[in-house]
């Protein structure tokens, strides 16, 4: 009974699970994708390791001069893959949207921006399927959460029906045995990863709401916030900011200039020291007054029980503290997860006497996700239009689903289509992007994928 339930629930939720897992894996490299989708920045970008304080000084001076009418200015130091400063500026009464989109890139001169949603669009598919807000967003989030419960059920039922014998070998007898062993070995390990992510994902969606149910503190909702008197002409002493930053001796941080309080803060945005105990959150923001005297150093905040769980789930799921090493390993886990779900669908097809529908569902999950993402990148490079790249994504996604069902018997055509799109992406990169670390890594990945498709194509012919 449980075996049948595992099999049938698996077949009918796998398609969406694959989509969620694919875009979840992609979002581990959201910063790199955001940079990759800003081809106008690539020319001025070079790979640097250490922070250049002279360039930081120039960036602060530029920001204070250009955005002197803004109450808050923040300057984010370059990531490990480039030497470009990100300047964010907003006022006390700016909307959330303005706070997020008022961004300029700087590298000894103001750099032009590409009009794109970048990785935000791909990430939004992971947790709400469509980049929408309002009531529908809650509905889609609920759907994703229900599927996350499905993952948890699939893992637990899988453990119960597993024969507890073989879990470190994949036999090479025949295709069915291969797929079955792969399902057990990979499912046992990657299922745990999926289970934790599904559980933390549901927590992220609903723990805040649960906390609201148990707290009746209406005083927190402050209405009619009074605008403070802000001296717009106030200018911070750049030397003081630089000396404070030098004393901290960190590679990546965000400096925020607050004109309303005449103080500046330095936040360590990649600090790995997140939670020292279960209910303690570390806030790595150092606040200085205008004369660079330290007002507040590392702050430990005590959390309530639900907030503690929320914080743990947030850190597990979003890994905001992750460096390249951790992101890469988690990305590998994500890729294996996608492969696992894809192979699970092929196993279902094999078990049901090569049932074409299940095979088509597997193809209709993998190829649309891959092709649409690649086309999203290609349109970004070619047209640099925020709307057109999203429309292209949806069109290719739907067309790929149709092609997957039409050519379920002739997989080599699907291989060729994906290979062609990958090839176009590499060519477009060579023409429209200056080569830098991120672009080269993306292109190497594309070339590896072309090779894998080619090898599969050759294997199919034999």
């Amino acid at each position, binding site marked *: 009974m449980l075996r049948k339930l595992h099999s049938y629930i698996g077949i009918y939720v796998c398609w969406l699970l694959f989509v969620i897992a694919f875009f979840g894996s992609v979002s581990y490299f959201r910063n790199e994708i955001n940079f990759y989708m800003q081809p106008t920045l690539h020319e001025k970008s070079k790979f640097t390791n250490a922070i250049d304080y002279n360039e930081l000084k120039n960036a602060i001076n530029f920001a204070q001069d250009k955005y002197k009418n803004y109450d808050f200015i923040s300057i984010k130091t370059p990531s490990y893959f480039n030497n470009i400063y990100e300047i964010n500026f907003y006022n006390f009464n700016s909307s959330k949207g303005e706070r997020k989109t008022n961004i300029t890139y700087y590298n000894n001169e103001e750099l032009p921006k590409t009009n794109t949603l970048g990785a935000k669009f791909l990430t939004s598919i992971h947790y709400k399927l469509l980049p929408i807000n309002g009531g529908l967003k809650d509905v889609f989030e609920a759907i994703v959460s229900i599927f996350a419960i499905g993952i948890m059920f699939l893992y637990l039922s899988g453990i119960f029906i597993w024969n507890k014998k073989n879990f470190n*070998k994949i036999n090479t007898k025949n295709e069915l045995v291969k797929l079955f062993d792969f399902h057990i070995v990979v499912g046992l390990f*990657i299922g745990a990863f999926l289970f934790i992510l599904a559980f933390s994902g549901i927590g992220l969606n609903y723990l805040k709401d649960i906390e609201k149910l148990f707290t009746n503190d209406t005083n927190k909702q402050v209405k009619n916030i009074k605008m403070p008197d802000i001296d717009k002409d106030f200018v911070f002493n750049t030397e003081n900011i630089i000396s404070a930053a030098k004393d901290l001796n960190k590679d990546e941080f965000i400096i925020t200039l607050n004109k309303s309080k005449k103080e500046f803060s330095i936040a360590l945005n990649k600090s790995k020291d997140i939670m020292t105990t279960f209910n303690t959150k570390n806030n790595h923001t150092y606040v200085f007054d205008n004369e660079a005297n330290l007002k507040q150093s590392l702050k430990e905040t005590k959390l309530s029980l639900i907030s503690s769980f929320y914080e743990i789930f947030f850190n597990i799921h979003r890994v905001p503290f*992750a460096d390249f090493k951790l992101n890469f390993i988690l990305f590998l886990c994500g890729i294996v997860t996608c492969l696992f779900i894809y192979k699970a669908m092929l196993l279902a097809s094999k078990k049901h006497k090569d049932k074409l529908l299940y095979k088509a569902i597997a193809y209709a999950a993998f190829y649309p996700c891959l092709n649409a993402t690649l086309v999203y990148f290609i349109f970004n490079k070619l047209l640099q239009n925020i709307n057109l790249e999203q429309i292209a994504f949806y069109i290719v996604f739907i067309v790929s689903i149709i092609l997957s069902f039409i050519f379920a018997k002739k997989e080599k055509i699907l291989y060729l289509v994906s290979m062609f799109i990958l090839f176009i992406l590499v060519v477009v990169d060579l023409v429209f992007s200056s080569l830098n670390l991120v672009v080269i890594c993306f292109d190497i990945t594309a070339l590896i994928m072309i090779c894998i498709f080619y090898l599969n194509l050759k294997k199919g012919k034999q």
Partner: protein
Amino acid sequence: MIILIFNLVAAILFSLDYKKTSLVLFIISFISLFFMENKFYNLMLYFSSGLVFNIIFVFIVFLYNQSKNKIC
């Protein structure tokens, strides 16, 4: 880095069927977590690398066996 090396060796041993030895290494790696700074970060690194290394090496052994069978 120590965690990654321990997990890597443990995963290789696991794929070569030395299950108990690999389990001991995984446990040593886990215990070493308690003596390190940034426990949360290292815990994430431990679990994710442990899971993915095991799969990768089991898959490599499978590919090796498959190619050996084809040659034979």
